[in-house]
């Protein structure tokens, strides 16, 4: 292991897939999407990630197919480079260094060897659309400094730029600018009503150009879509209005032929406007979240929508969703914190509104969503939604407790606690108990007793109403049905202080509940108050017991920036230190505790054992932002760092989430090593969808393969039987009218009946058939190769293989004949 390499903070998956429009490959087999510093290639049929194109040093901001070679892909990034990729093999072909921070990338068929990018010049808010000439050179890295400005003062979002035939349209605020490539002029259209009406939300939000006609569609903040025509004339231009969206139009796209226009927005409904009329529209509702981007495949058979919940939906031409590519949902605020599902080892946190998401860290993929609130989500601005505020796993993942709340006014609090049981049969959580208003005020903490020996599952909730409640699982069954349910077993309070935290000791014998500044210790057998600790150092923010050898210690972090450690045996303060702790997480596999402190410059990480006040490891400045949540995830395979400073990473990995919701971790490996997808070799061809057509062809092919395999097996083991020699069987099975003349076949036939000296020939034939099949897949090259091969054999016919070689080429030819007619014959 590379123990000597230093530990770095690395971003680990969970990057935004919806940052830019997704792009389809020319044959619609693949879909490309940006994902942080990478470009991901997914199969549209199976949703599986086929390749990850890595090489950029910063966020990838734009991807486009090479208009001159549809097997290549351009990408641009904030690191100032444009890269050209071969996406089929996942190889970087070329890098063009531009030098500026590139915000978006566009390619146009008519523009030879140049692409368009959005760059930022000078001031913060001023962006330019420039064309970059990509010089032709054989070297890997090329400087491309030849920039020419096309449009100035534009919006940075690529949605506000569109290219049509011979025009480029850009929108910003209240005007639309159109640049004519032929005339090299710009005309500008301002919406007339924008100045008259005060509250008109006429701001342009997006633009799309018709692929065939001279027509530009623009989306507006008030939900209107305008179709502009005759814009080559500054005076006579016209526009028509389409209005269905009640909120901002987020993106627009024309279909390939231009007959229909697609639009989407906050309503999460994809609208297809046919023939650009208001009457003719089709809907695909319930897409789950705000539509951020819409794109159309060049073949025209697929659409895709990117959503604000980090998901891409591939939609069939007839408006049927066919595939969903889901990343880590980052739409909502994270209230629940980071948890680890003990069963799947997945990271669990708030997902879609009202859902918990289970996210696999290994595969950077969402496993599933658990609907907690189970109510229709109404996406409306200013509506107070029910929020999932707390969640906890208990009893090795058998139980899940969730708390949801909604507060409209000060006095009107709706609280609900739900307890979910894991069902082994359905492999999912099933709602067991629903408790309405478990407390009279907000629940501040929730914890299960995870001791091994505890016979009844126990849950403790602490609330601002000054109570903590102990819930236990009781048998509720009678002679009619078997049932278990949770009931309140004990209610505890301490001088009417608000209960802020609760925590069970590792063996489950003690419960610590903090009431503002005071920590109380309760016996979990009798629910008696054992002792209290009070340091008068501010309200307790975090509370946790030490583990394993340090289980006699209790740690508390206060709001005034004091970290205290109490010894439970002597009931005295062991040590305390000044540390403004934001996150405190115990490692489930060791005694270590990680604390992240917050200062004005950044966040620092301290890893320590409760038994000694000296930290094991300090990493300064792990992130410039505030770290909100952290969690230790047990490793599947323990690492073996020898150096003492890194030993805390041996058995678990520490993940943390910053305020801007980027998921980070510590690693010593290079990012390439870390993020190697397990399914890199997976090709789309292997997982074709099972259509009726596939059944007919696939079965047919299988049978053939089987036959051949069987033939080979028997040949290898024993003497060749006459039926098993391919040449003979071909001769016998091929219909007579397609056979070449008998004179051609004669020598081959006789040769095939001869016993070869070694079985090697069999292997050769096997190889031969393979190569032949490969060739056949590439129709254009076949003819040439074939003739070449014949030439080759003619030149090298010195050995004794002459006869054999000849027969081989003939056999090939024969087989070709057979292949040509085979399907036709069976069809009869």
């Amino acid at each position, binding site marked *: 292991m590379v123990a000597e390499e230093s530990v770095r903070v690395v971003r680990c998956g969970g990057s935004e897939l919806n940052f830019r429009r997704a792009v389809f490959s020319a044959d619609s087999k693949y879909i490309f999407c940006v994902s942080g510093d990478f470009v991901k290639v997914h199969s549209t049929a199976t949703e599986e990630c086929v390749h990850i194109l890595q090489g950029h040093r910063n966020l990838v901001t734009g991807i486009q197919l090479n208009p001159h070679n549809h097997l290549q892909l351009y990408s641009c990034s904030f690191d100032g480079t444009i890269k050209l990729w071969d996406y089929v093999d996942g190889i970087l072909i070329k890098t063009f260094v531009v030098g500026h921070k590139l915000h978006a990338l566009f390619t146009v068929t008519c523009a030879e060897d140049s692409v368009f990018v959005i760059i930022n010049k000078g001031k913060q808010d001023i962006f330019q659309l420039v064309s970059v000439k990509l010089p032709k050179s054989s070297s890997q890295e090329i400087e491309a400094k030849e920039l020419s400005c096309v449009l100035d003062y534009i919006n940075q979002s690529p949605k506000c730029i569109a290219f049509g035939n011979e025009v480029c349209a850009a929108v910003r605020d209240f005007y639309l600018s159109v640049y004519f490539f032929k005339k090299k002029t710009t005309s500008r259209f301002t919406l007339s009503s924008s100045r008259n009406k005060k509250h008109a939300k006429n701001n342009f939000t997006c633009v799309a150009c018709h692929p065939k006609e001279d027509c530009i569609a623009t989306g507006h903040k008030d939900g209107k879509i305008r179709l502009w025509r005759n814009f080559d004339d500054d005076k006579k231009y016209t526009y028509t209005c389409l209005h269905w969206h009640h909120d901002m139009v987020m993106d627009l796209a024309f279909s390939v032929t231009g007959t229909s226009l697609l639009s989407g927005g906050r309503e999460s409904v994809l609208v297809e406007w046919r023939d650009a009329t208001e009457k003719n529209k089709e809907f695909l509702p*319930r897409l789950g979240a705000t539509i951020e981007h819409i794109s159309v495949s060049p073949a025209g058979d697929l659409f895709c929508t990117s959503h604000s919940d980090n998901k891409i939906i591939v939609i069939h031409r007839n408006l049927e969703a066919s595939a969903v590519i889901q990343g880590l949902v980052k739409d909502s605020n994270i209230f629940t914190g980071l948890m680890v599902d003990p069963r799947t080892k997945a990271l669990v946190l708030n997902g879609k509104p009202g859902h918990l998401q289970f996210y696999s860290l290994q595969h950077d993929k969402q496993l599933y969503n658990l609907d907690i609130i189970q109510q229709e989500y109404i996406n409306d601005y200013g509506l107070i939604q029910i929020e999932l505020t707390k969640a906890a796993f208990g009893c090795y993942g058998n139980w899940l407790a969730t708390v949801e709340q*909604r507060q*409209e006014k000060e006095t009107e609090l709706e609280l609900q606690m739900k307890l979910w049981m894991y069902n082994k049969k359905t492999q999912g959580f099933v709602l067991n108990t629903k408790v309405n208003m478990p407390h009279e005020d907000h629940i501040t903490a929730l914890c299960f007793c995870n001791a091994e020996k505890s016979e009844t599952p126990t849950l403790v909730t602490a609330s601002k109403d000054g109570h903590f409640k102990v819930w236990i699982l009781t048998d509720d069954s009678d002679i009619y049905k078997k049932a278990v349910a949770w009931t309140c077993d004990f209610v505890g309070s301490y001088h009417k202080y608000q209960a802020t935290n609760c925590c069970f000791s590792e063996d489950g014998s003690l419960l610590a509940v903090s009431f503002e500044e005071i920590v109380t210790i309760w016996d979990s057998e009798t629910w008696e108050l054992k002792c209290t600790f009070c340091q008068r150092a501010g309200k307790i923010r975090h509370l946790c017991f030490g583990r394993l050898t340090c289980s006699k210690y209790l740690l508390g972090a206060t709001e005034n920036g004091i970290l205290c450690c109490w010894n439970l045996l002597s009931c005295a303060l062991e040590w305390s230190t000044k540390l403004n702790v934001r996150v405190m997480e115990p490692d489930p596999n060791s005694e270590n505790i990680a604390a992240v402190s917050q200062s004005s410059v950044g966040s620092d990480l301290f890893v320590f054992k409760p038994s000694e006040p000296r930290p094991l490891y300090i990493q300064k400045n792990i992130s410039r932002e505030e770290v909100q949540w952290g969690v230790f995830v047990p490793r599947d395979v323990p690492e073996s760092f020898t150096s003492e400073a890194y030993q805390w990473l041996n058995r678990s990995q520490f993940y943390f989430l910053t305020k801007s919701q980027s998921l980070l971790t510590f690693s010593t490996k290079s990012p390439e090593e870390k993020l190697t997808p397990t399914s890199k070799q997976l090709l789309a061809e292997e997982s074709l969808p099972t259509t009726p057509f596939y059944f007919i062809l696939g079965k047919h092919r299988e049978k053939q393969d089987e036959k051949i395999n069987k033939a080979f097996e028997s040949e290898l083991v024993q003497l060749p039987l006459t039926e098993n020699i391919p040449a003979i069987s071909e001769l016998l099975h091929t219909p007579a009218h397609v056979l070449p003349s008998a004179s051609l076949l004669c020598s081959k036939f006789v040769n095939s009946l001869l016993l070869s000296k070694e079985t090697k020939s069999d292997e050769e034939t096997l190889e031969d058939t393979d190569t032949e099949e490969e060739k056949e897949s590439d129709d254009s090259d076949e003819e040439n190769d074939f003739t070449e091969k014949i030439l080759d054999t003619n030149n090298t016919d010195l050995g004794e293989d002459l006869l054999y070689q000849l027969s081989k080429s003939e056999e090939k030819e024969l087989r070709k004949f057979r292949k040509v007619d085979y399907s036709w014959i069976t069809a009869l």
Partner: protein
Amino acid sequence: MAGYKPVAIQTYPVLGEKITQDTLYWNNYKTPVQIKEFGAVSKVDFSPQPPYNYAVTASSRIHIYGRYSQEPIKTFSRFKDTAYCATFRQDGRLLVAGSEDGGVQLFDITGRAPLRQFEGHTKAVHTVDFTADKYHVVSGADDYTVKLWDIPNSKEILTFREHSDYVRCGCASKLNPDLFVTGSYDHTLKMFDARTNKSVISVEHGQPVESVLLFPSGGLLVSAGGRYVKIWDILKGGQLLVSLKNHHKTVTCLYLSSSGQRLLSGSLDRKVKIYSTTSYKVVHSFDYAASILSLALAHDDETIVVGMTNGILSVKHRKSEAKKDSLPRRRRPAYRTFIKGKNYMRQRDDILINRPSKKHLELYDRDLKNFRVSKALDRVLEPTCTIKTPEITVSIIKELNRRGVLANALAGRDEKEISRVLNFLIRNLSQPRFAPVLINAAEIIIDIYLPVIGQSPVVDKKFLLLQGLVEKEIDYQRELLETLGMMDMLFATMTRKESTSVLQHASDGFLENKKVES
């Protein structure tokens, strides 16, 4: 891409007795018919053969009643003293009864005079029964003996003198003609075998045994005595299986329901309890006016007959399954149209295309799905919904509030519609479980309709009613708070005094507490 999620209807736990299959079954009886007998009804026995007449032993008479008759269809009154334990033979043609003077008499149910008289007991015979072979009679008497009689020649065959106190109950096995069980006031149950001349099993009940019962299989024995009902496993040599203590007073009679799934016990505490014979838990209980002495169920549990100490016989008949739908029903597609293709086996080459199953939505859900909020509210304000299921109405109001459209849904209503809303509020506003939602709705209504108040006397009256209700509720809450304050004070003084070991005041405190509460 998930479908529409229906509105979650808040469910509230139903207070009081749980409704189970058993309560439904045992409550499905008509109001009892009361028949006055001459004395305490000591035994009721149903004829095992149709028409399932029953013999009632009370005082010195035995009455035989038909199924629905309230007058006896036959009476045996030739007893010098009190008669006991009139029991039918398995074929329903013979009846045997003991009497206070120690005689055992056998009757033909068609005749009047006794066919046989078995003389031999010196004291009152409280229990008699036919053996399984129909030719013998077992009797137990207060002279501590149990005798076996032969019917054809009215001879005593065997006498068992093993009990040391009155023998008050007995029961013959239904399978084996030689086995029978007796229970006695010496606290023991004894099983006798006619092939030997002594008991084969003897178990200690612990209390004077009032009633015994053998399960039809003969494997389990039930005994009642004192407050206990005990189940014994005969096949394990008389091991105690369960001891049930569900009555407050002596259990006097036992009976097994016709299915064998339920055991009934009657007691002097005026209750009949029904137990499940698998879990031995009480599943239901009946109350009666007087202490119960005897109990019997007809074939198929059609009738429950209970005899009491005050001489009243209570007869309950099962309600017949009412044929309500006399109206010609709309002709529906035949059953086979619905199951068409259901049992089609998938062949190897078939491709299964599932039609997405259509989810059934309630009408209000359909309206909400299409954002017809006023209509959805109208639907749940229908009288059928507001009276039967107010929780649905409240849930919909809550959902509308969550969607932020409650004001829209409540606005623009005419006099009739608004009075319907107000009626609902008046009825349910003071219920604590609905209050938070409905107060909010009431506020919105007042805000909306304040400008037009005074235009309709009907609506004004409703508003005044609502106002009165709210004022009453406020007063009530204030009173409650006052009481709570008083109680807090009392408790506080109590705990302090307890620490100074003055316990008397504590009890005073409790008394005062109770006064306050009342």
